[in-house]
């Protein structure tokens, strides 16, 4: 029996956290995602005994996550751009200590205090590291409220499978919009204690230490080598993407998250005009589906990347296609969402070159 509900993105995500058997949430209010903490504060403890704590800052919150995930529990935090910036030191520690946890960034427009409107301006921060040192998060980019739900479950699974922090990279619109969602059934909270967790040393095992400090250069390099080996394995196993109407497409729109949905509307509009357009949507933006996009580039004439930023993912698109086809970019910033018509217009502009094709046309 399907359980369908009409829910706001942030609340659906919070509901999914309870159902995923989350043990603890530590967070600090910030628009546009405060509903996550509010929803959990109202519902979580009485339903599953989940710990919900409003920390004194994002800095404290991420360090509570560090401690609680080190204790082997399924824990998460959520925030929005400036708050996520504050967490970066802690995220770097968590990544190096290889602790599993779920981070949610409901991105708002920046830089600085910016705006509370939706943005994708934190793409670089999310997928290229964000904090200090060489580390990577697993980053999932939902494009619907349904995926806000599904990615919570998936995010915890991936975090524990790889002992790696996993981030859901949403945006202010996905957090605030209401949509129909299908909720998965309540999962029990896990009681198994991972062998590496700091829970008190019994007589029959060595003490567990959670640290990211390795003073010898060679030892620290070894830690780094192991992390890179893990990231490579993650890239081999965990890439997820979606291709919409790409089979016969001449031109492909590459977009993630909310913008990918807008681009599917563009496909309909364009095809009404006889332009064969498809959409390539990375679901994992880290690891990035480079190979799939590279293969796709063999059969198309051009790519238009659309983002709510100044052009961040487009760099990965260009890396992926290795110059096989021109890669154009359309970006809106500061909280402005591009309209389907605007994207179609840009596409037509690019198509209206002397050869009548999306080739060698660089604005």
């Amino acid at each position, binding site marked *: 029996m399907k359980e369908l509900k009409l829910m706001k993105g942030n609340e659906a995500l919070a509901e999914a956290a309870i159902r995923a058997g989350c043990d603890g949430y*530590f967070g600090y209010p910030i628009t546009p995602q405060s509903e996550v903490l509010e929803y959990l504060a109202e519902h979580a403890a009485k339903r599953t005994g989940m710990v919900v704590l409003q920390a004194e800052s994002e800095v404290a919150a991420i360090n509570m996550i560090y*401690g609680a995930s*080190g204790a082997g529990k399924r824990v998460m935090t959520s925030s929005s751009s400036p708050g996520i910036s504050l967490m970066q030191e802690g995220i770097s520690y968590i990544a190096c200590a290889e602790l599993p946890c779920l981070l949610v960034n409901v991105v708002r427009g920046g830089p600085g205090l910016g705006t509370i409107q939706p943005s994708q301006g934190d793409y670089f921060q999310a997928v290229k590291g964000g904090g200090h040192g060489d580390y990577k998060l697993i980053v999932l980019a939902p494009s619907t409220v349904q995926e806000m739900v599904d990615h919570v479950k998936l995010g915890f699974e991936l975090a524990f499978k790889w002992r790696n922090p996993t981030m859901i990279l949403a945006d202010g619109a996905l957090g605030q919009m209401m949509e129909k969602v299908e909720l998965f059934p309540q999962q029990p909270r896990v009681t198994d204690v991972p062998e590496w967790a*700091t829970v*008190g040393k019994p*007589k029959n095992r060595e*003490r567990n230490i959670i640290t*990211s*400090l390795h003073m010898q250069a060679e030892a620290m390099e070894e830690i780094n080598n192991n992390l890179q080996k893990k990231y490579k394995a993650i890239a081999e196993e965990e890439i997820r993407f979606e291709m919409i109407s790409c089979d016969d497409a001449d031109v492909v729109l590459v977009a993630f998250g909310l913008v990918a949905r807008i681009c599917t509307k563009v496909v309909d509009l364009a095809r009404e005009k006889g332009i064969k357009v498809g959409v390539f949507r990375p679901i994992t933006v880290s690891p990035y589906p480079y190979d799939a996009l590279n293969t796709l580039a063999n059969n198309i004439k051009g790519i238009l990347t659309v983002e709510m930023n100044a052009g961040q993912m487009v760099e990965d698109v260009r890396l992926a296609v290795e110059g096989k086809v021109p890669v154009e970019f359309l970006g809106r910033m500061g909280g402005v969402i591009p309209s389907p018509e605007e994207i179609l217009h840009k596409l037509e502009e690019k198509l209206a070159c002397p050869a009548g094709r999306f080739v060698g046309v660089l604005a």
Partner: protein
Amino acid sequence: MNEKRMLGEDHYEQVIAEESICTNENLVYEKPETLTDTPMHYCPGCGHGVAHRLIAEAIAELDIQDKTVGVAPVGCSVFMYNYMNIDMTEAAHGRASAVATGIKRVLPDKYVFSYQGDGDLAAIGTGETIHTCNRGENILIVFINNGIYGMTGGQMAPTTLVGMKSTTTPYGRDVAVMGNPLKITELIAQLPGVYYCTRVAVNTPANVRRAKKAIVNGFKYQELKKGLSFVEVVSNCPSNWKMTPLESNKWMEENMFPFYPLGDLKVPGKEK
């Protein structure tokens, strides 16, 4: 002596072994199993080693090794986990009490402590310290106050005394520029979330015994779930104070103790 030398080192060691007074019959003191065999890196005369040992002894005597998780952040004691034979987490600078909060909240029946220096607890981590205390987290915070940044080489700490020289106050701490030393322990003792708050030292056998009792209390009180235990250990830093261990202890008694007086600030059952 000459005879022993002539007999060779093996024989000498054998004689020593035979004459050892460390037999089971007369053993009065031994390393608790909660300490590892790793030699400590602390400077001669530093109080960290004693404080570590007291925590290890308390855990061993209370028989809670399998239920204890420690947190030590950046500072001289960042390698505490090398010496303690317990589960430990190394925390970011200033964040130990937040990390300890995270652990305690998901493992409410375990014993959790943080071990923090003055820069960590009273400068970069002041926010976490106050809020952890104010929430009344059922943990023990051991606060080592030696009035200086030891690990980074002797810079001014929030607790550096007025006029006291450090590498960043080469002419002595000037109140007009750097403000007064922060009595963070007096500050947090006011908070209802703090159940037990005391200030001790480890410079004499009597003070070591008092410090031990305070630390044992800090662990035992966690069972009551009535709030946070805070034990400040006023300590020395011979290397960065540029003194011998003896001189540093004397200086501590004459200068640190008047400003940071030893004794209980808050004892369960009797408000001071």
